[in-house]
């Protein structure tokens, strides 16, 4: 139990002076709580069950990733980024590799680009599946979790076959890929696409028109597009609020401009719209994967990159569309083999800011739903 006085001043609605608020309750949700997705600690001020305001306490998983980078070479730091958003490790790797490539003025060969896109999009699906399972579990539907994990397993199998690791894949290298796609890679990916399409329908069957699901998610955790932009919120959360912003389209990286896909948007910016947006995103990712698999060119998989990387003095900011939003890497190089400074702009960390706005005036149960819908990964929030 936290003493209310030690709380930093929350910007609360003016308290009702007519009555003494005998019911005001300060509750400490987490860091050990089944629904805070790891070690997030949320201090809630409640009036009965209504949330008056909340504050996130983070840092329980802080490992100093950015600081570690300053003592590692560019190549050595590559595996570390996998440990930030560990459910979307491939995306992290893509962002980092592309950022360093940009700094070195190298470009990965087309075949590498295609395989990168396939793996990243697969990982987007895996990340969304994990989100869906845990989000539904938070809202009380226990079954989707097992369905999504069953299907996510197939993606992890492909990862494992490709690079030997399932979660923290370290799949990409600066300048391209370490491994050539294994025999039957295309076949596996195609088979997965055919396998998972009906499965996504299955998830939707369980939830999309479920009355209780609708009641629990509609008009819950509403955030306007304006607020999203003000807070720097990105990813599906932003798109569900009606802003059509996807870095894959807006500032195309890798070879996303070669592919035909749509950016789903919502209107209300509530939890249900975010759910729908993510469901459509999974299908769009499948579309991208199918196009990419069909068009993988032959050729080298690694660009010419010096063994000892000494990028020119300068700084670079490169961002990609990770499953959770804009994942940016800001790298300052002093010309040595080690980066002078790396700053990561993790989507979860920024999106978490919106929690307060989204929860205010809602009930405790909605806080859970909103934490789920923000799709945060604490490894990324705390780095």
């Amino acid at each position, binding site marked *: *139990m936290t003493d209310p006085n030690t709380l930093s001043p929350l910007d609360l609605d003016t308290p009702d002076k007519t009555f003494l608020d005998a019911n005001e*309750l300060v*509750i400490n949700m987490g860091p050990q*709580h*089944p*629904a805070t997705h790891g070690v997030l600690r949320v201090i809630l001020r409640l009036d009965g*069950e209504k949330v008056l305001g909340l504050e996130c306490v983070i840092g329980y998983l802080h490992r100093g990733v950015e600081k570690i980078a300053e003592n590692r070479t560019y190549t050595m730091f590559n595996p570390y980024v996998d440990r930030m958003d560990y459910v979307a490790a491939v995306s992290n790797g893509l962002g980092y590799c592309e950022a360093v490539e940009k700094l070195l003025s190298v470009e990965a060969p087309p075949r590498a680009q295609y395989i990168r896109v396939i793996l990243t999009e697969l990982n987007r699906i895996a990340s969304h599946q994990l989100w869906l399972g845990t989000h*539904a*579990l*938070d*809202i*009380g*539907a*226990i*079954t989707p*979790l*097992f*369905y999504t994990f*069953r299907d996510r397993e197939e993606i992890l199998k492909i990862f494992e076959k490709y690079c030997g690791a399932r979660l923290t894949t370290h799949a990409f290298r600066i300048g391209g890929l370490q491994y050539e796609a294994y025999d039957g890679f295309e076949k596996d990916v195609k088979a997965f696409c055919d396998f998972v399409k009906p499965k996504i329908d299955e998830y939707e069957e*369980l*939830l999309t028109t*479920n009355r*209780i*699901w609708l*009641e*629990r998610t509609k008009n819950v955790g509403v955030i306007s597009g304006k607020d999203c932009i003000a807070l720097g919120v990105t990813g599906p959360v932003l798109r569900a609020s009606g802003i059509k912003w996807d870095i894959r389209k807006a500032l195309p990286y890798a070879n996303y401009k070669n592919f035909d896909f749509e950016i789903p948007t919502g209107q209300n910016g509530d939890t249900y719209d975010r759910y729908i947006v993510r469901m459509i995103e999974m299908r769009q990712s499948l579309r991208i994967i199918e196009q990419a698999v069909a068009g993988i060119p032959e050729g080298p998989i690694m660009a010419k990159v010096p063994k000892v990387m000494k990028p020119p003095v300068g700084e670079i900011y490169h961002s990609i569309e990770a499953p959770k939003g804009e994942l940016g890497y800001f790298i300052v190089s002093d010309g040595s083999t080690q980066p002078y400074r790396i700053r990561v702009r993790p989507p979860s960390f920024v999106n978490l800011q919106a929690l307060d706005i989204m929860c205010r005036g809602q*009930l*405790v*149960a*909605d806080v*859970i739903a909103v934490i789920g819908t923000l799709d945060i990964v604490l490894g990324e929030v705390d780095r």
Partner: protein
Amino acid sequence: MHDLIQYIQSYLGSDKTPGGAGNIFWATVYVLLVFVGLSVAVIAMNWLERKILAHMQVRLGPMRVGPHGLLQPIADALKLLLKEDIIPEGADKVVFWVAPFIVVLAAFTVFVVVPFGPTHAITDMNIGILFMLGVSSLSVLGIVTAGWASNSHYPLIGALRSSAQMVSYEVAMGLAVVSAILMTSLNESSTGTLSMIGIVQAQFDQHEWFLFKFFPLGIIAFVIFAIAMVAETNRAPFDLPEAESELTAGFHTEYSGFRWSLFFLAEYSAMIAVSSIAVTLWLGGWLHPFPNLLSSPTWELAFSFIPGLTFLFLGALCFYHTARMPKHPLFRIQTIGLAGFGVVLALIGVVLFIPAVRDRVGDIFWFSAKVAGFMYLYIWYRGTFPRYRFDQLMKVGWKVLLPTGLALLILTAVVGMRGELLEQAKGVFGR
């Protein structure tokens, strides 16, 4: 000694419940039987829930302890009993102690009037259904005090939630029950009754389950009750008091070991209790399907075989899975165990074919089978539905179920008394 035997035997031919006949010996036997049966049912329910839920969720469930995890509930119970008993700092020790017992007592006491058969009830009170509703409503007290005594925020919120929930849904539940009780009296021949046995008897006399009486009024009442009873027992999708993702475990967060297992026991026996109310009121209690239509001796005989056949089928299922067990030395004990279990089931099935037994267990079997259907529904709900939010739960209770229940009650009365009402109308407008 002779007197005693005579006293014991004197009941056997009776057509009353042991309580009704005032036979203390048989009443004690029945109490023990119900208690043991209930405990076995809870244990079985524990295993079944985990297995069925697991299969709904594309996983296997317990597989390690015993063949197909059959011994898992026993292992769980053992673990709970051996677990350290923690009383949190600052808890009110006495209340903390008493609370689980209140819940268990409330959940078990209701079975005094549950009619497993025309004579198979501990006693038949003439306020039977009132007694059941009243005593089951006492478990709220245990939950509230448990949450309060834990001296912790989550249990307190859980307790307040659950008491509010149970009290609100009791209203809707009561209305549905009253409409069913009303149906006992809306007939030329029978008078109204609150007795559980009387209610089933009335369904027999009126040649229909109350589920279908005054179609669709009976079904609506049943649906109201079926929803309210899930809320009343704090099960998914109304399991807010113990909403895992929000309140960790609700009112019993601070409980562990034996006392926690009491809550567990109470929850499951309360589920069985409310299901038996539903079965008694709407599904014809111990009556087998079409009791009036298929009442010829041949049909009676056929129906009396079904309990035995069911157990034989279960035994055969066990043998089938024994045959499918991996042929590996490591699995030998498990295979033998499963086969043994199958033999036990088959033996029970064979015993159920003995005429003397056959005639007595038919009622109990049909009642239990109907209750088991409800238990399956409970598991199914849990696998399918997300959880309601508190205000939505209250909205459903007060703004949907309550008005529907009230309208239903009035409609039932009007439809039931239509003859008299028409008579009256004729008296006024007729001439």
